[in-house]
């Protein structure tokens, strides 16, 4: 049954790889829902996470104690790397996106510039050569090979960590105060503000969570393959894909997919790019947003 075997093998690979992609695309979706633009720098945010983890892991060094073939210090480095990524994203938001006075398309284009800057800085510091974490590569787990599943312990660790992070995010969104506020803001920023939610604070939390997840995803991507400055940019297209269709709880998808109704729903203004710059009301730049994944 060669076909079945191949199917099982591909499925196992797919699960591992998609656990990395999920971490990237969740952050992308969060930022899309709340900041209101498609962030083309998200792939390179993952690169930042991967290299931050590399540096921190280099400083901390390996420990003898290990879980699933990974030193405990790697998990520590991963968390710190994700934190560094979140800080980088917050700084970018504060210094680049916040002062801008352009529509969602302008923000999209700016994020391309941000992506270039991230990648260039990583490349200047670490050169274009590929690097690896200082972790012994493992053979696939023996007893799983009997079922034709070639998965290493590292990959099991990735999938498990991704599941932990995703479940954690789900609980956060569904059952905590912050999560409710985030969903409210994504659904209708003006209403959220009128209800007393500090929308700005929610935006910052969104960047922290989104970039943190991307950083963790980047570190796993580096563990799965290797680290090169283009790693995140190459993944960008793939992380956009689930973001398109992955709206598990949207009540009436057809309504806002239909272009005519979409326009009515979102207001008719198209982003400006003429000589005069739009001065939309505060919060107006989110009007181009579609109802996203969060609502």
């Amino acid at each position, binding site marked *: 049954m060669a076909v079945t075997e191949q199917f099982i093998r591909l499925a196992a690979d797919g699960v591992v790889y998609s656990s990395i992609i999920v971490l990237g695309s969740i952050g992308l979706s969060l930022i899309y829902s709340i900041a209101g633009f498609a962030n083309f720098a998200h792939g390179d945010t993952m690169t930042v996470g991967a290299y931050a983890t590399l540096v921190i892991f280099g400083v901390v060094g390996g420990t003898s104690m290990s879980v699933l073939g990974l030193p405990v210090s790697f998990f520590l480095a991963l968390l710190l790397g994700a934190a560094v990524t979140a800080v980088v994203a917050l700084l970018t938001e504060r210094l680049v996106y916040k*002062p801008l006075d352009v529509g969602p398309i302008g923000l999209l284009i*700016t994020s391309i510039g941000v*992506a270039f800057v991230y990648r*260039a800085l990583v490349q200047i510091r670490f050169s274009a050569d590929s690097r690896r974490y200082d972790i012994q590569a493992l053979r696939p787990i023996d007893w799983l090979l009997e079922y034709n599943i070639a998965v290493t312990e590292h990959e099991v660790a990735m999938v498990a960590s991704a599941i932990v992070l995703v479940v954690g995010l789900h609980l956060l969104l569904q059952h905590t105060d912050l999560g409710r506020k985030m969903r409210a803001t994504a659904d209708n920023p003006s209403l959220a503000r009128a209800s007393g939610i500090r929308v700005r604070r929610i935006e910052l939390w969104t960047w922290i969570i989104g970039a943190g997840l991307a950083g963790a995803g980047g570190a796993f991507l580096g563990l799965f393959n290797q680290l090169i400055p283009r790693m995140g940019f190459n993944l*960008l297209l793939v992380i956009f894909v689930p973001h398109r269709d992955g709206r598990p709880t949207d009540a009436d998808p057809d309504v806002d997919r239909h272009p005519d109704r979409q326009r009515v729903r979102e207001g008719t203004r198209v982003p*400006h*790019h*003429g000589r005069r710059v739009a001065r939309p009301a505060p919060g107006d730049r989110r009007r181009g947003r579609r109802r996203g994944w969060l609502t």
Partner: protein
Amino acid sequence: MSTLTDPRGYWGDLTSEERGVAGFLAAAVLVLLALMLTGVLNPTYFLFLFGLGGMFGLMSLGLNAQWGYTGLINFSVAAFFGLGAYGAAIMTASNSPIAGDMNPIFGLVLGLILSAIVAIAIGIPTLRLRADYLAIASLGLAEVVRLIILNEGQWTAGSQGLRGIPRFFEGWPVLPTLPEALPQVNIEMIPGRVVTLGLPFWRQLLNVTLVLTFMAGAYLVLRRAHRSPWGRVLRTIRADEDLAKALGKNTYFFKMQSFVLGCLVMALAGVFFAHFQLFVNPGNLDPTTTFYVWVAVILGGAGSNRGALFGGFVVVAIREGPQFIEQLPPAFLTEFPPGFLRDLGFITDDVLFELPSIAISPGPLQLLLVGLLIILIMRFRPQGVLPPQRELIWPDAVDEDVRKRPDSGVRDQRGGDGDE
């Protein structure tokens, strides 16, 4: 020709943006001429860069017809450029798996047809989408086209690339042999530094003539289209698509026409590239090119043809500039203050110190400069350096708080005629 008969009046009619760009261009021309005459910049190499600039100018003209006129976000510029280049190469290259060694005119035709077909095929599903969906769909298309060209070796020779492409004027009367026939010219402005203009120079000059012809053709067609009623519909779609629909326009159809028109101009740039480089490979379809073209259009000012051309040349300057940094004498980078200042005698020895050497390879530096440029433009001048002048339909012409006209430089009497 009011420029010749009444230069003062012509200058007075220009807007401040136009004056700024014209002054900048004049300064750039003077500096480049001086550099070439003194032998610092090789004229042949300059013509090569100018050819590249023209190629980027063509691509940004094409993108401007899509994004600037109609507001379509196309992130597959590199793909249409590549289709043009491969269309030309497949017909003319000596190792083409399908049909090599044909007249370059057939290559031109094939390149344009290929890109038009792909543009229509991708336009049908995506042009109904909202702006940022089109962005992602077209980014995907670029990757699909690149991978097809990379992997379908039986048509495209795969990763080896197509080589042995003739020059564009091969098979024409006079022109192919003209560079050989022209004499070698020696210019000696500074004694001891002879600038030689030989065969390579004349060949590049022919290339530059070709790209200038393409550019002029595309520019005139696009300007005509922009001023026509058709162009006004496009700008109305950009400003408010529902308004255009309410006026009875089939906006989908107009968007399709604008998309295909822009893609044809990009393919034209690709055709030029094939006959310029005489070699194409799948690496030429790198998505980074797309973003450089975007920088050019945004820098120039969306909606403005002249701005797009200007942006194309500036982008090439940014792309190629970092390579010159490497050629600077190392002392210039590592010593501060540099030697020539020390020789003046103002600076005593106690301020001398060694700077850490700046060892940045040109690749990432170029990326960094382009990235910073995008951010700075969007921050401080989102409308670009030369936004459309004397435009009658503003993107927000339908807003209540519309200003009636730009602040300055409006030629009242010329109304709809002089808009660009």
